[in-house]
């Protein structure tokens, strides 16, 4: 085995075998899924108070359709809209007002739902579901074909493909813009976190080798540059392992949790979903929030984001890790690292702020330039990716990133070579620059 691969292997195995690594790798996805499930669950808890919805139905066609259930009770009123509106608030008689002005078959936009606060999603889909189903049945009946209803029901399970296609246009697009933002921010924060955590590991590793003087034994066997690169690559692999484990575990836990959540759902909710036409995952009966989330997730190109995430993570990590290694080599103990690590931390902290602002305008000048500058691009580009970045921009940004990390690694190698053998000397920035010329 070549020497650098020996070093990589050591750096990798000692870290991966650590209890803290195993715990963190296993627990984080649980925590992540737990949090999301908690949010979904909290959103899904029904108010025990029955909400009363006023209905002004000018057509008088839908009294039988709008059936009250344990959460919602419909009360048909015959008063002017303005009067009812006044009673529709938190402390008033009604939670919301459904106003139907015309026959919905001829005029599907004739129904509106008024409320003081944002109506919750569940109510909206409940009403829409009831109305949709009724109208659908009416329409089917109007064709006068026997067994048509059964035929349509049957065919519904087979038109998966179509639903996905529809999901990509029109209304669905709006939902996925928010999702794109969430995915972008999550991957940006993850890259930021990985660079900081694993960069710091490189730095601490170098400091430890230097303070316990093992470095002298090792560089009498291998070149300092090999030792540095072995450490950087080994730790990069640790990071990748952790990332992949997180992705896989999160996926597994999500499907398990999804199955459990689905099993707990009442028949009513399942019916609703059928009516709402969100049958993209017909087998998994999930709450509407989860259902719509999954539908929107279908519209995101995860493969591209995953691959570019790994590429940008590696690029950004290599850029910063070599600088962290140089800093580690220049100091005598861990407490001294602060003086030098601050200037390295600044651009990456700036990057995360730039990413947050770029999310609001993913094609703006800040987003563009920060996704080109190598010190910020790994983080900022992550935010922009779900919003479809032109290919040439990704290419250019990656090229700059690669050239930069080759440059910083070369520089860091020179500083490292001198630094690891320097003891008992407070090193200044000027000194570091001098080492570059040795």
């Amino acid at each position, binding site marked *: 085995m070549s020497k650098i691969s020996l070093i990589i292997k050591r750096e990798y195995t000692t870290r991966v075998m650590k209890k803290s690594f195993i715990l963190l790798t296993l627990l984080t996805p649980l925590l992540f899924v737990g949090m999301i499930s908690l949010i979904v669950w909290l959103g899904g808890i029904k108010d025990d108070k029955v909400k009363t919805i006023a209905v002004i139905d000018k057509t008088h066609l839908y009294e039988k359709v709008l059936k009250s259930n344990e959460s919602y009770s419909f009360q048909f009123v015959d008063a002017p809209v303005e009067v009812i509106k006044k009673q529709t608030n938190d402390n008033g008689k009604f939670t919301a007002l459904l106003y139907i002005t015309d026959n919905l078959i001829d005029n599907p936009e004739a129904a509106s739902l008024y409320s003081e606060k944002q109506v919750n999603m569940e109510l909206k889909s409940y009403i829409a579901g009831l109305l949709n189903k009724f109208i659908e049945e009416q329409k089917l009946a109007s064709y006068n074909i026997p067994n048509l209803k059964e035929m349509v029901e049957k065919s519904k399970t087979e038109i998966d493909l179509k639903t996905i296609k529809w999901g990509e246009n029109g209304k669905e697009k709006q939902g996925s813009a928010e999702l794109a933002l969430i995915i972008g921010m999550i991957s940006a924060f993850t890259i930021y976190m990985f660079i900081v955590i694993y960069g710091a590991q490189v730095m601490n590793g170098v400091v430890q080798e230097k303070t316990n003087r093992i470095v002298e034994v090792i560089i*009498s*066997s291998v070149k300092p540059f090999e030792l540095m690169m072995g450490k950087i690559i080994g730790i990069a692999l640790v990071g990748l392992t952790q990332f992949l484990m997180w992705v896989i575990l999160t996926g597994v836990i999500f499907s398990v949790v999804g199955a459990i959540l689905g099993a707990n759902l009442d028949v009513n909710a399942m019916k609703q979903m059928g009516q709402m036409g969100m049958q993209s995952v017909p087998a998994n009966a999930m709450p509407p929030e989860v259902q719509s989330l999954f539908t929107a997730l279908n519209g995101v190109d995860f493969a591209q984001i995953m691959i570019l995430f790994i590429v940008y993570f590696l690029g950004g990590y290599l850029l910063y890790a070599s600088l962290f290694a140089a800093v580690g080599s220049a100091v005598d103990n861990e407490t001294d690292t602060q003086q030098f690590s601050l200037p390295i931390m600044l651009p990456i902290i700036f990057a995360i702020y730039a990413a947050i602002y770029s999310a609001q305008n993913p094609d703006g000048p800040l987003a563009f330039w920060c996704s080109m500058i190598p010190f910020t691009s790994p983080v900022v580009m992550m935010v922009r990716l779900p919003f479809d970045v032109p290919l040439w921009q990704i290419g250019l940004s990656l090229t700059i990133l690669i050239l930069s990390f080759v440059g910083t690694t070369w520089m860091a190698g020179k500083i490292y070579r001198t630094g690891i*053998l320097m003891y008992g000397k407070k090193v200044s920035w000027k000194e570091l620059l001098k080492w570059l010329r040795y």
Partner: protein
Amino acid sequence: MILLEIENVVKQFAEHRALDGVSLTVPENTIYGLLGPNGAGKTTLIRIINCITAPDSGEVRMNGKRMTPDDVQHIGYLPEERGLYKKMKVGEQALYLAQLKGMTRHDAQKALKYWFEKFEIDAWWNKKVEELSKGMAQKVQFITTILHEPKLLIFDEPFSGFDPVNTDLIKREILELRDKGATIIFSTHNMETVEDLCENISLVHMSKIVLQGNVSEIRASHATNTYVVRSQSPILGNENFELLSQISKNGMMESTIRRQLSGGNNLLLNEIIKQTEILSFEELLPSMNDIFIKTVKP
């Protein structure tokens, strides 16, 4: 046979010249002492031999050929401030270091088994280094240094931290290694060990070599013509020797004298025999310690 030749090596750091025209030759199969006060340049010299740093000028030759980084495979180096990875297990670590020196895992395992048994430390194989005492860790390190059977061994203060029993063990191992054909460079402040083990020395001071040569020759050349004489009755100083001190000890007289008479030791002995019955007669050679201090003191 000369194993290692260092010729006119100069190493300049920013404002400080660490080595200034240092030359020395280490004969094969001997123990060579590299002495000098702290900061004299010993460590820099050792690093140059190990190809860790390059000299600004001058040359290092091994077996007559200019040294290349590949030759470092044949060097075992035990640095003074030694360390191991604290969190790593002893056996794994020893294997790792041996493999870095170019041994295969299999060979390293076999050799380690031999040495761990010899030093009676097999029980430590799965212990973490942080659980070991300083002396224990040093034993492990000593083993990792010699494991790949290097032709040249460089020990920087190998006995610091060892108790007398282990010091003796390591001393015997070092002598055994030499008998098996290894050449050893010792860097130490402990002059007793130098007298015990080293055949030749170089004393580095202020980046230069100030004293070099065979240990017995150096001691003889620094002789102060002082002798210790044990006799039955007191002796008196005369024109042939000066009496420096005289005490009664265990029923006999112990006198320290300085010779004034020129010529061999027998001539002096003859002069003393005339006065009393001599029990013992010994030339007091200066210790390396005295020579060291005398040479280095401004």
